[in-house]
């Protein structure tokens, strides 16, 4: 492709942006790291990372004026990758501090069950539930790195492309057309994690080809 895709990593002071950036760079993307909402309408793809507290992250998004632009971006159908808290924030509500989230994916965010070590921290396997471009070449039951205390529970199970068990089975990969999100950290999951980033790049290229085609 002659011109570089504009890939925006949303920086709202929540977590290890550097690792996400390095992972993107390792597959050939030079992302724009910004918390400026005006960059979203012109983006070819958005990566939405996040760790830490859900309610604090929602406040940070609100204070930066990112809530409505994020919703509008996802509605446009262009590629969007949420990571960890960046998956959870897409749902309607979270039990963490009983707060509202972005309301992009119907469903809620729930606390992992009592009686387990929390956070769920370490390498756990992902059972592929549905085929999706994001999971191309990912072997069944591959291990990815997780760190979280809450989990996404989408009300529509057909978009749960990968699930993981920790006390309960939960959605570890959500994939609905170009809206994709993982509970694990692909940028911390070694080679198999970088496959996720490479697949996301393929989704971006496909989406741009389609857009350019429709213009021509």
């Amino acid at each position: 492709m002659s011109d570089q895709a504009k890939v925006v990593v949303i920086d709202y002071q929540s977590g290890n942006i550097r690792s996400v950036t390095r992972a993107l760079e390792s597959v050939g993307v030079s992302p724009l790291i910004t918390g400026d909402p005006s960059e979203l309408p012109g983006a070819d793809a958005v990566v939405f990372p996040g760790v830490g507290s859900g309610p604090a992250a929602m406040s940070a998004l609100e204070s930066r004026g990112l809530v409505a632009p994020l919703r509008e971006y996802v509605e446009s159908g262009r590629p969007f990758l949420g990571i960890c808290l960046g998956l959870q924030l897409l749902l309607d509500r979270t039990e963490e501090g009983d707060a509202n989230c972005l309301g992009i994916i119907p469903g809620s965010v729930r606390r992992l069950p009592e009686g387990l070590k929390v956070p769920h921290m370490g390498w756990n396997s992902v059972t592929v539930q549905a085929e999706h471009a994001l999971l191309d070449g990912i072997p069944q039951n591959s291990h990815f790195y997780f760190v979280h205390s809450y989990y996404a529970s989408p009300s529509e199970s057909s978009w749960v492309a990968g699930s993981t068990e920790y006390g309960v089975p939960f959605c570890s990969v959500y994939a609905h057309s170009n809206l994709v999100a993982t509970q694990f950290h692909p940028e911390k999951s070694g080679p198999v994690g970088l496959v996720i980033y490479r697949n996301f790049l393929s989704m971006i290229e496909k989406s741009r080809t389609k857009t350019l085609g429709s213009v021509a």
Partner: protein
Amino acid sequence: MLTKRIIPCLDVDAGRVVKGTSFVDIRDAGDPAELAYLYDREGGDELVFLDITASSDSRDTMVDVVRRVSDQVFIPLTVGGGIRSVEDVRRMLNAGADKVSLNTAAVNGPSLVSDGADQFGNQCIVVAIDAKRVTGPTGTQEPLPQDLPLDGDSRWEVYTHGGRTRTGLDAVKWAVRAVELGAGEILLTSMDADGHLAGYDLDLTRAISQAVPVPVIASGGAGTLEHLFEAFTDGQADAVLAASIFHYGTYSIGEAKDYLAGRGIPVRPRQAASQS
């Protein structure tokens, strides 16, 4: 299923790894980034870098080490040693660390744990505890003002400053307090077992693991693969930290994982190196 983690630990002095290593195909045995890359390829589940430099101006060097390692290695990194303020925590996380390990500074100023957890999330705050069995009479030491003094039931005491300073704190109580303050993980080192290669202190590991609701990393004493197995079973650890057993080439991480898998411990299989 969540797997048990094997975490190689690298001691860094003035920007260089100082323990010997088993790798034969290595250009520079002291380069943290090269070692990190090799441990990653061998199947290390995370990496811990401990800054053992005594001077305070080593911070910049360590930030640079973390930056170089995180450029090349896509597994979790924990950095410890000499992190004293929320600003230190922020710098390490911004440099690419996923977690910081707090030891002496957490004992001397527990608000560092809560402030760090509030700002960055408890998943990135590891409290490291150096514990030693109580042998003589307790109560002779003036406890630090955390209200967790040793008592007649205490079995382990917290030490700081790399094991040189007694604190008068009960190790189990301190672990519980650290988690209440916001620690997302406990890195537990038995000073009695450390360096003896005769196995982890399983009683200590079990006592702490049962007392806290967060993962516990056992450290100190691993000399054989059986010791790793015991830490996960008798000791109820969620992860093991090991230095000597891997550095000196006694076993590779791959061998450790094969052994553990053969004895029914869930471990992450080595990934196909097709991507590198």
